């Protein structure tokens, strides 16, 4: 490519930038840091092989994600991107727990409403009531016991949630990432 500016990769590698240089579309000469960081972590040869195995229309995204990972690894040489994944998974778990607690509280309200409704219906019933069974009375008492606690026990529910295995709901990664120390917080 006579006279044309070599791409950032070929500049760094000190070689002639071919017309069909695989790096040229993604590593322009005005951003040398981008290739430098990717080269430092992955190596030019590996990046070239990876790009060759990917369809052309997806190479831009691949380069972006490689740059992201390389930056992450450069800032956190021990955990890299995995630190971010751990942090976000933790957030997801916390949110799911809060959601479970909130949904349980909604259920309590709904049960309370049902009970109130039943009491009102019972009040307006005809004199020859159908006798309720002992089991129904026991169920009624259990509900009353549950609903009589005016302070909703978040701590108890959180403990119960934590006792559940949490692996099923977070199965979006192949395995649990290694635990990280706190370079990201």
């Amino acid at each position: 490519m006579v006279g044309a500016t070599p791409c950032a990769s070929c500049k760094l590698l000190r070689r002639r930038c071919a017309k069909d240089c695989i790096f040229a579309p993604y590593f322009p000469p005005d951003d040398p840091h981008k290739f430098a960081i990717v080269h430092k972590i992955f190596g030019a040869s590996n990046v070239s092989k990876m790009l060759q195995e990917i369809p052309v229309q997806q190479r831009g995204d691949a380069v972006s994600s490689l740059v992201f990972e390389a930056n992450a690894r450069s800032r956190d040489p021990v955990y890299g991107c995995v630190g971010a994944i751990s942090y976000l998974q933790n957030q997801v778990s916390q949110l799911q727990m809060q959601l479970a607690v909130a949904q349980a509280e909604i259920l309590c309200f709904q049960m309370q409403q049902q009970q109130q409704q039943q009491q009102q219906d019972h009040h307006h019933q005809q004199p020859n009531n159908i006798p309720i069974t002992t089991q129904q009375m026991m169920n009624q008492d259990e509900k009353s016991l549950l609903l009589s606690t005016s302070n909703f026990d978040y701590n108890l529910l959180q403990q119960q949630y934590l006792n559940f295995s949490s692996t099923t709901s977070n199965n979006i990664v192949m395995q649990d990432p290694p635990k990280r120390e706190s370079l990201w917080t």
Partner: protein
Amino acid sequence: MNSGRCAACKYLRRRCPRDCIFSPYFPPTNPHRFSCVHRIFGASNVGKMLQQLPVELRGEAAETLYYEAQCRMENPVYGCVGIITQLHQQINEAERELARAQAQIAFHRHASNAHRPLPQQDQLEVEPSAPEAVTDSSWLDQNEFDVSALMSPLDPAWFL
């Protein structure tokens, strides 16, 4: 010392020295581990990265490098970043649901308070407040990683 070579030196077909940087983290019983890491990062880069770390942190580093390499092999376009993006989506969805649930709770509380007689001043109870949503992921932006740029222009079918 042929029989005692680590997975890295076996793969690279070289002698495994006593102070081999790879051998504590790439045992010969798991050859796939090193081949994965080598394919994505290259043996030389991995060796340099490990050398630059204190000994006590090298194990963790080797684990995370293996994890990242596996992610990249599973998803050659997005690697680990695909997982990060998916987690962001999960967080957004969970926050929306939580906001909805909290709005419902507020509604129910208001409705049930409307049916109660007004309490005396000295009988007022402080209700436990719902835990605040902990969703501060702004550090990702603070660290100049333009995840939003990765997310917005991309095809929704991100994961192979």
